C-alpha cells in the first residue's frame, strides 16, 4: 500500500536522457562552432607560412564568415519554430476549411457553423463578456491598490499579498475559489465562505456554479484575482517613475488627491496602462484552465479556447476545432497591432 519509489525510476532515467540531450546539443553546437573555425584558421596560417617561405604572393585574408555563425546560432530556434509553430499554424488554417476527418474541403462551412449553432454563439458571447470584464476589473483593482499602498509602511509586504496569486496555477486558483463557492444543502452548516456570508445575512445558500449567467461572472472573478497582481506591479512601477517635481508642483498648487490622480497620475501612466490592458486581454482570450477545472464548460460557461479543445480533442471534430482556433487568432491580431503601434509611438516620443 506504500508509494513505491522504484516504479518512478524510468521517469528519472528519461529526465536524465533529456538533460544529456540538452548538454549534447547546446554544448556540441558551441564546441563545433569553436573547433571548426579554429581549424580553418590554423590551416590558413599554415598556408601563410608556406607562402612566405616560398616567396609566393600572400593569399588574401578570406572574408569574415559571419553568415556561417549566424546560421548555426539561429538553427535550433528557427527549426523548432518552423516545425512547432509556423507549419502547424498554416495547417490549422487549412484544416479549418475541411470536414471533421480532414478529408474533404467544405469551404467556410465550419465558420458558418460557429455563428449559427446556438451553443457556440453562447460560447462566443461568454468570451466577449470575459474579454470586456477581466482586463477592466483586473486593471482597476491593480491600479487602485497600487495607488493606495504607494509609499505606505509595509508597502513591499502589502504588494506581495496581491502578487502571490500569479505564482499559483489556474488549476490551483480554480480549486481555491471552488472551495469559496462550495455548497451545502439548506439547513446544513455551510463550508463555502460565500454561502456562509449569504446565510449569515439571512439569505438562502446557492449552488453558485450551476446558475447561468452568474457562474460566468464567478469564474471571471478567479481570472481577475490572478491577473490583478500583474497589473499592480507594472502600474506601481509606472507611478513611481512619475517625476517628483511634477507631483511637488501640483502639491504646492493645493491640488486635491482626487485631482492629482486624474490629472497627473493617469496621464503619466497611460502607456503602462495600455500595455497592462492589452496583455491581460490576450491572456483572457486564451483562457482555458479555469473553465475546464471549475465547470468543464458545462452550465453555459464555456469559452472559445475550451470549446476548441472539446471539438478537436474530445469530439474529434478537427475542422470545427481548427475554425475556433483560427477565430481566436483573428481576435488577437488587432489587439497586438494596436500594442505595436503604441510602442512605436512611445519610442518616438
Amino acid at each position, binding site marked *: 500500500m*506504500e*508509494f513505491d519509489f522504484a516504479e518512478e525510476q524510468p*521517469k*528519472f*532515467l528519461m529526465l536524465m536522457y*533529456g*538533460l544529456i540531450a540538452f548538454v549534447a546539443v547546446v554544448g556540441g553546437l*558551441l564546441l563545433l*562552432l569553436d573547433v571548426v573555425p579554429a581549424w580553418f584558421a590554423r590551416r590558413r596560417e599554415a598556408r601563410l607560412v608556406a607562402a612566405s617561405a616560398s616567396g609566393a604572393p600572400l593569399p588574401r585574408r578570406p572574408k569574415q564568415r559571419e553568415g556561417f*555563425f549566424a546560421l548555426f*546560432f539561429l538553427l535550433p*530556434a*528557427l527549426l523548432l519554430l518552423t*516545425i*512547432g*509553430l*509556423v507549419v502547424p499554424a498554416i*495547417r*490549422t488554417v487549412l*484544416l479549418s476549411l475541411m470536414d471533421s476527418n480532414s478529408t474533404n474541403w467544405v469551404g467556410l462551412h465550419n465558420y458558418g457553423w460557429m455563428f449559427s449553432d446556438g451553443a457556440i454563439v453562447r460560447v462566443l458571447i461568454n468570451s466577449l463578456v470575459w474579454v470586456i470584464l477581466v482586463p477592466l476589473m483586473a486593471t482597476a*483593482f491593480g491600479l487602485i*491598490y497600487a495607488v*493606495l*499602498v504607494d509609499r505606505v509602511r509595509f508597502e513591499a509586504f502589502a504588494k506581495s*499579498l*496581491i502578487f*502571490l496569486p500569479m*505564482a499559483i*496555477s489556474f*488549476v*490551483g486558483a480554480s480549486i*481555491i475559489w*471552488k*472551495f*469559496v463557492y462550495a455548497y451545502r444543502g439548506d439547513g*446544513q*452548516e455551510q*463550508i463555502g*465562505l460565500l454561502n456562509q456570508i449569504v446565510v449569515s445575512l439571512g439569505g438562502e445558500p446557492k449552488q453558485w456554479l450551476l446558475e447561468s449567467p452568474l457562474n460566468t461572472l464567478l469564474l471571471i472573478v478567479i481570472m481577475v*484575482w490572478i491577473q490583478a497582481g500583474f497589473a499592480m*506591479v507594472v502600474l506601481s512601477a509606472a507611478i513611481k517613475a512619475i517625476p517628483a517635481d511634477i507631483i511637488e*508642483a501640483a502639491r504646492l498648487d493645493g*491640488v486635491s488627491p482626487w*485631482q492629482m490622480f486624474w490629472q497627473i497620475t493617469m496621464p503619466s501612466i497611460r*502607456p*503602462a496602462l495600455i*500595455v497592462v490592458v492589452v*496583455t491581460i486581454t490576450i491572456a483572457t482570450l*486564451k483562457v482555458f*484552465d479555469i473553465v475546464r*477545472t471549475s465547470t468543464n464548460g458545462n452550465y453555459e460557461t464555456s469559452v472559445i479556447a475550451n470549446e476548441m*479543445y472539446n471539438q478537436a*480533442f474530445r469530439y474529434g471534430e*478537427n475542422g470545427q476545432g*481548427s475554425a475556433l482556433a483560427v477565430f*481566436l*487568432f483573428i481576435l*488577437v491580431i488587432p489587439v*497586438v497591432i494596436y500594442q505595436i503601434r503604441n510602442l512605436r509611438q*512611445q519610442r518616438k516620443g
Partner: protein
Amino acid sequence: MTTATPTVAVGTTRTDAPKTVAGRVRKRLNSRTATLVSIIIALFWTVPTFGLFISSFRPEDQIKTTGWWTFFTDPQFTLENYQQVLFGRSSSSGQLASYFINSLAITIPSVLFPIAFAALAAYALAWINFRGREWVYIAIFALQIVPLQMALVPLLKFFSTGVTVAGIQVLPAWDLVDEQKFAQVWFAHTCFALPFAVFLLHNFISQLPGDLMEAARVDGASHPKIFRTIVLPLITPALAALGIFQFLWVWNDLLVALIFAGGGDETAPLTVRLAEMAGTRGNEWQRLTAGAFVSIVVPLIVFLSLQRYFVRGLLAGSVKG
C-alpha cells in the same frame, strides 16, 4: 522645496490646502477610507488561499461538515490528508507523488531548452551581421501573436503519424510510450516558448555595450567565445527572469500537458491530475485542498525566492517592449 512656479500642466482651479476643520477631517477621512479599502482588497486576495490552506490540515469529517473558520474555535490538526493524497495507493487517493515527479520531469528540460536556444538566437540577431537579420527578427517577434491553440492539432498529428509529403513518409511517427512521452511535451513547450524568449533576451543582449563586443572581436575572439565568456555572464539576470517565467508557465500549464502527455500517472503532471480530481471528485475536499497545496508549493518557493528577478523581467518584457 523650491518655490516652484505653478505649472500649466495642472491647469485646474487652485484649491487651497485644507485650513478649515472640516477640510482637515475630510482629509483624515480620506486616508482612513484609503486604508480601509486597501485592507479589504488585501483580504479578498488572501483569505481564499488561507482558507484552503487551513482546511488542508483539518480531518476529513471536519472539512466536510464545518467551515474552515471554525478551526479557530475548535482546532483539530492532521497531516493525514497530505499523507493520503501524496502516497495513498487506492485509485481515488490522488497518488500525487507520482504526478509530482512527472511535473519535475516535464518542467526542467522545458525550461532549459528554450532558454539556451533563445539565447543563441538572440545573440545572433543582435551582434552577428548577416543579410536578412531584420526580417528574421520581425518574423520571430510576430510569431508571438500566434495562439498556441493554432498549433495543437497539427503538432499532435506530427507526433503520432509523422510527416508525409505527396505520399512519401519524410519523417516517421515518434511512437512514444509511457514516460517517453515527456519528450513530446518538452518539444511542444520549447517551440511555444521561443518567440517570447527570443524577444525578451534580444531586448537585453542588444543593449550590451557595443565597445565591449568590438574590443573582443579585435582581440580575435570568435562569436562562440564572445557568447560564452562575455554575453552569458552579463545577461544572467535576464536568464533568471526568463527562467522563472518559463518555470511558472510550464509547471502551471494544463492545456499542453493535457494534449501531449496524456492523462495517466506515467506522464501527466500535477495540474492535469488536479483538474481531473476537481471534476470527478469535486466533493473530496480533504484531497483537493491538500492536493492544491502540493502543486502550489514549488512555484511559490521559486517565486518568493526569485521575486526580484521576476519583477524586473516583467517590467522589461512588457513596458520597454
